[in-house]
């Protein structure tokens, strides 16, 4: 029988272990030696502790809360408590909280080991502890209606199933780092609720993919997923784009038009870069979230809306509130305390190997690329590729691979990638991997066959280093030389101002007046286009005058 996972039961009573043995024979219960006998549960911390590490370490723990044990087996210090009133009181308290003491010790050694409490949160008498347990991403309580043997087995099965989830949901990459597993659990809890959500994280971490491929499908909503980029719509059109407009309400409104709120009825409205909303649009959005009603531009009547709003930002909205650029009441409506923050790739480097292989896997799965790879292998005298094509992250890893076609990323280049800061995060990493594989397929040195007949296709280390260097240049805002006319100004302050004017003018000419491109040249990202345009105008320049 296929084993579903190794589980350690920590309980002073046998019922939970018996229920698991009876109802889930596929679960591998860890045995505890007890003299000549053995049983399938540890009845105290001293019995459980030695079993937490090593080759047979548990993949999940089932833990009771209350333990009727003698003093010398009770945490925190196993000392005799005597029969005085104080001793009896302390004994009772230790027994009531023994599961919490055990969990605390366990977390010091295995911070991310899933632990299922056989008690519902509602049944934990200690409020503070219950709140702390809820905050621990890897501690689960049995649902209130499921505290029977069958319910505990069902809850455990759900936890064990979480281990086997694929690294991607749609195009969103999770990986298996602690931070992302925690995020995954929070997303699972929050996605099905109707409340507005805020997604934060730097550019390239996958905020919009998270909403499109994970949160919207998990929400169970029947309507559409409607993305709306708050940075790209001109200020004057923001309100009508969001809430719709009646014919004739402004110049160019030649017919009644629905806004994105209406398009997302019963679905999810994703407001990307929400920090770019104008003051008026922020106010209208606040009303929509607060009252659940919207009003088309030019209309006197409000109508209810059914869109669930998910906003994303890579700005520090708290700071923007402090600078009066973002409404504090709107931020509050977006539930900032529940904000889902996607960490930078550099904060979860342990996910990089899996991300590299997943990116390569997506590339290889494209039939067009598959045909080109097969042609490379045939040209080297190899057979038609059979089985999965893989990416090896070093030469030794390639020689150990059993796949018939192996792309080889040179170990030195991979080491550099592992150290790289990746300011463009997952998106930038995926581009570097995909571009270097594409170069190897379509413009590389071809394949060679090893002694076992495996086709090896090397990635060009120099190109990888160039891609990384290019990324660095982008981080620094570009390192190209740039010649400007030297301004003649009566003061340092004016010189600085004139220099900035000259720079923006030159960029305007270079890009043909494309503010997004200007922002990209200045910062490496098009996201600041609005800020660039505002600055351009503030310096007394006008697009019409410069053209």
């Amino acid at each position, binding site marked *: 029988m296929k084993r579903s996972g190794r589980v350690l039961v920590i309980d*002073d*009573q*046998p*019922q939970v272990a018996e*229920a698991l043995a009876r109802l889930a024979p596929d679960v591998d219960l860890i045995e505890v030696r007890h003299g000549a006998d053995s049983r399938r549960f540890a*009845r105290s911390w001293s019995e459980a502790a030695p079993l937490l590490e090593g080759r047979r370490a548990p993949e999940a723990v089932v833990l009771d*809360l*209350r333990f*009727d044990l003698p003093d010398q087996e009770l945490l925190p210090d196993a000392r005799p408590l005597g029969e005085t009133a104080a001793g009896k009181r302390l004994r009772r308290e230790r027994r*009531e909280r023994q599961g919490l003491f055990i969990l605390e010790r366990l977390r010091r050694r295995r911070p991310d080991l899933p632990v299922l409490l*056989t*008690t519902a949160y*509602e*049944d*934990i*008498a200690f409020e503070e502890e219950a709140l702390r347990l809820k905050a621990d991403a890897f501690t689960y309580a049995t649902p*209130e209606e499921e*505290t*029977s*043997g*069958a319910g505990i087995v069902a809850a455990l099965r759900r936890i064990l199933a979480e281990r086997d989830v694929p690294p991607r949901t749609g195009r969103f990459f999770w990986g298996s780092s602690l931070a992302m597993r925690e995020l995954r659990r929070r997303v699972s809890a929050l996605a099905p609720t109707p409340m507005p959500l805020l997604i934060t994280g730097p550019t390239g971490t996958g905020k919009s993919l998270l909403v499109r491929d994970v949160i919207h499908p998990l929400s169970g909503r029947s309507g559409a997923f409607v993305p709306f980029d708050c940075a790209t719509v001109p200020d004057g059109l923001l309100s009508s784009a969001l809430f719709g407009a009646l014919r004739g309400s402004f110049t160019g409104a030649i017919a009644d038009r629905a806004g994105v709120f209406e398009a997302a009825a019963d679905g999810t409205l994703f407001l990307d870069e929400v920090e770019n909303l104008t003051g008026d649009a922020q106010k209208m959005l606040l009303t929509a979230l607060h009252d659940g009603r919207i009003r088309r531009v030019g209309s006197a009547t409000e109508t209810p809306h059914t869109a669930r709003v998910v906003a994303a930002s890579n700005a520090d909205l708290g700071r923007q509130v402090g600078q009066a650029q973002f409404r504090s009441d709107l931020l509050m409506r977006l539930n900032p305390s529940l904000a889902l923050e996607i960490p930078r790739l550099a904060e979860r480097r342990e996910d990089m190997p899996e991300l590299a292989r997943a990116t390569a896997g997506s590339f290889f799965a494209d039939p067009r690329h598959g045909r080109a790879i097969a042609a490379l292998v045939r040209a080297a005298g190899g057979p038609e590729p059979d089985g999965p094509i893989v990416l090896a992250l070093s030469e030794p890893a390639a020689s150990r691979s059993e796949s018939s076609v192996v792309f080889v990323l040179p170990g030195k280049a991979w080491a550099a990638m592992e150290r790289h800061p990746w300011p463009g995060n997952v998106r930038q990493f995926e581009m570097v991997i995909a571009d270097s594989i594409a170069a190897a397929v379509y413009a590389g040195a071809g394949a060679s066959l090893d002694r076992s007949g495996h086709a090896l296709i090397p990635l060009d280390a120099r190109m990888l280093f160039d891609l990384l260097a290019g990324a660095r240049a982008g981080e620094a805002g570009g390192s190209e030389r740039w010649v400007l006319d030297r301004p003649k100004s009566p003061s340092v302050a004016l010189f600085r101002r004139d220099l900035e004017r000259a720079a923006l003018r030159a960029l305007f000419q270079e890009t043909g007046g494309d503010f997004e491109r200007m922002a990209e040249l200045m910062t490496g990202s098009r996201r600041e286009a609005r800020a660039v345009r505002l600055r351009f105008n503030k310096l007394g320049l006008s697009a019409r005058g410069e053209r």
Partner: protein
Amino acid sequence: MSRSASEAAARLRHDLGKYIRFSAPETIEADTAALRERLRVDVASTRRTESSALSAVEVYDQWRRAEAESFPPGGTLAEIIERLGRTIEEIRWLSAEIDGLDRPGLERLDALTLVVATECRALARAAKS
């Protein structure tokens, strides 16, 4: 409610409410022998250690003796405890005869275990609020 009442109620919910139907399936066993065996395990050996076992009635009696003072007379908590006490009395009588109970008697005992589980939960909730 007082902290001691809340903790005492949580203790009863854990020791009695959770285990008195621990092996119960979603729907009652069609097989009378299986039903009798499950009730024997859950009601007669509700709290077990390696060396001893306490029945549901014994768990309740012990709890009552130890915790009587934690609950004020009158009010919601006292009413729930009163109802629990009456249910436990009927269980005491039926479980003593478990080997000779016919199907309706076993079904009655099963229904009483459900009442105990529900009342224990209600007591814990009321004591917490």
